[in-house]
């Protein structure tokens, strides 16, 4: 009971996901082991079943999130509209997510166009992407990979939960046309 309240207070105060190992370190008490924490987490998940929020597991730990059905009211609280990303950015992000680690040059090769610094900056800034090393070729280009925050923001806990990359030849022609349609709507 008390352990659940302590956990709850941690999740609500952190404004980021917290891992069980971090919880163990904070508690620093032999009375609370990993099993006790896991048990408390599952109790908390049950406890708040009918409320507006839920305890979810993401890449870097657990956190409370507000159920999606309440988004219409919450979005009214914010005067700014959430960022809508361009197709160029999304394609770049997809390449980083599915072919990581990857250099900017390699992204450009697949997309057939240059990738603007602006896009890379936005992704780094958003902490969705980070530099994990440099390729050992002339110019030592940075190798880009996605971060835990990226998975957290999509509410998933590992890369393998991303949508599957379509197989070559399995993409119906209509899907292509729909893509174009989208772009025109957004233009």
């Amino acid at each position, binding site marked *: 009971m008390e352990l659940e309240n302590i956990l709850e207070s941690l999740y*609500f*105060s*952190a*404004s980021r996901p917290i891992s069980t190992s971090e919880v163990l370190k904070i508690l620093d008490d032999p009375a609370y082991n990993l099993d006790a924490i896991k048990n408390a987490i599952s109790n908390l998940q049950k406890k708040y079943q009918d409320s507006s*929020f839920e305890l979810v597991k993401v890449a870097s730990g657990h*956190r*409370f*999130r*507000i*159920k*999606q059905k*309440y*988004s219409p009211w*919450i979005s009214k609280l914010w005067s700014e509209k*959430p*960022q809508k*990303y361009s*197709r*160029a950015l*999304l*394609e770049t*992000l*997809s*390449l980083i*997510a*599915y072919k990581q680690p990857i250099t900017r040059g390699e992204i450009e090769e*697949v*997309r*057939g*166009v*240059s990738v603007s610094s602006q896009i890379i900056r936005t992704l780094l800034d958003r902490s969705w992407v980070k530099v994990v090393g440099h390729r050992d070729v002339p110019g030592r280009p940075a190798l880009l990979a996605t971060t835990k925050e990226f998975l*957290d*923001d*999509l*509410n*998933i806990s590992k890369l393998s939960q*991303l*949508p*599957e*990359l*379509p*197989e*070559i*030849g399995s*993409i119906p*022609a*209509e*899907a*292509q*046309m*729909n*893509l*174009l*349609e*989208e*772009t*025109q*709507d957004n*233009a």
Partner: protein
Amino acid sequence: MDNSTELKPLQQELNLAVLNGEEISFSADDLYIPPNALKIFLESFEGPLDLLLYFIRKQNLDIVDINVLEITNQYVRYIDLMEKIQFDLAGEYLVMAAYLTEIKSRMMLPKENDSEDEEEDPRSELIRRLQEYERYKTVSKSLDAIPRAGRDFYLASSALPEFESTRDLPEVDLDQLSNVFAELVQRQKLSASHIIEFEKLSTREKMSYILDLLIKEKNIEFHKLCDSKEGKIGIIVNFLALLELAKDSLIRIIQSKDFGIINLSSKDEVH
């Protein structure tokens, strides 16, 4: 999502864009597109591979069956058109035109009848690139559709109790701050006239001060803002801040008679 400009994929005629309220359309056979619409048309592609994919898919073809001659002709015609209307075409489009032309000429060369050295289909590299690009293009759409924090759902947090911080928070020093700002300005290529001067900054400081004061007290008399220690300069800075705030319609200024007391009040109802 607004689907009012919905396209039917297999329709002969394609409504490409709405320009000045007028729907621009063209058909697969008739390549004429008004120049303005052509610009919009090209801007909706993420580069030459994307444009080529469109040509292929528009004709409901499989990538592996592409008729390079036809696609090349179609592509080059677009590029020529764009050049004619002096549209600033990205270099990649021209590179692709050259590449396509090369494939086309290689395909027109007579095949050597040497079965030992079976030459690769000149199209294969292009086909491989188109297929590869299409995979990521398609998956990027699925990625965007995944509910995202801050856009589709929100996180829950609550206010903190009072607590002792056992460790120092990250520090920031003056030089770091000004260097970061300088780099920002440099990046934005702001003109030299944007350099922050002493006077301007004190005005900005006063602006913040006045706004903050108006949160606590709904009305303030101007002379109460001025500190005698600051002297004439102080009054001037205060007055400049006042004018700036009024210009941005952040405050209300009322002076009921000439040389009378100047009253400032908040325009803000939320706080």
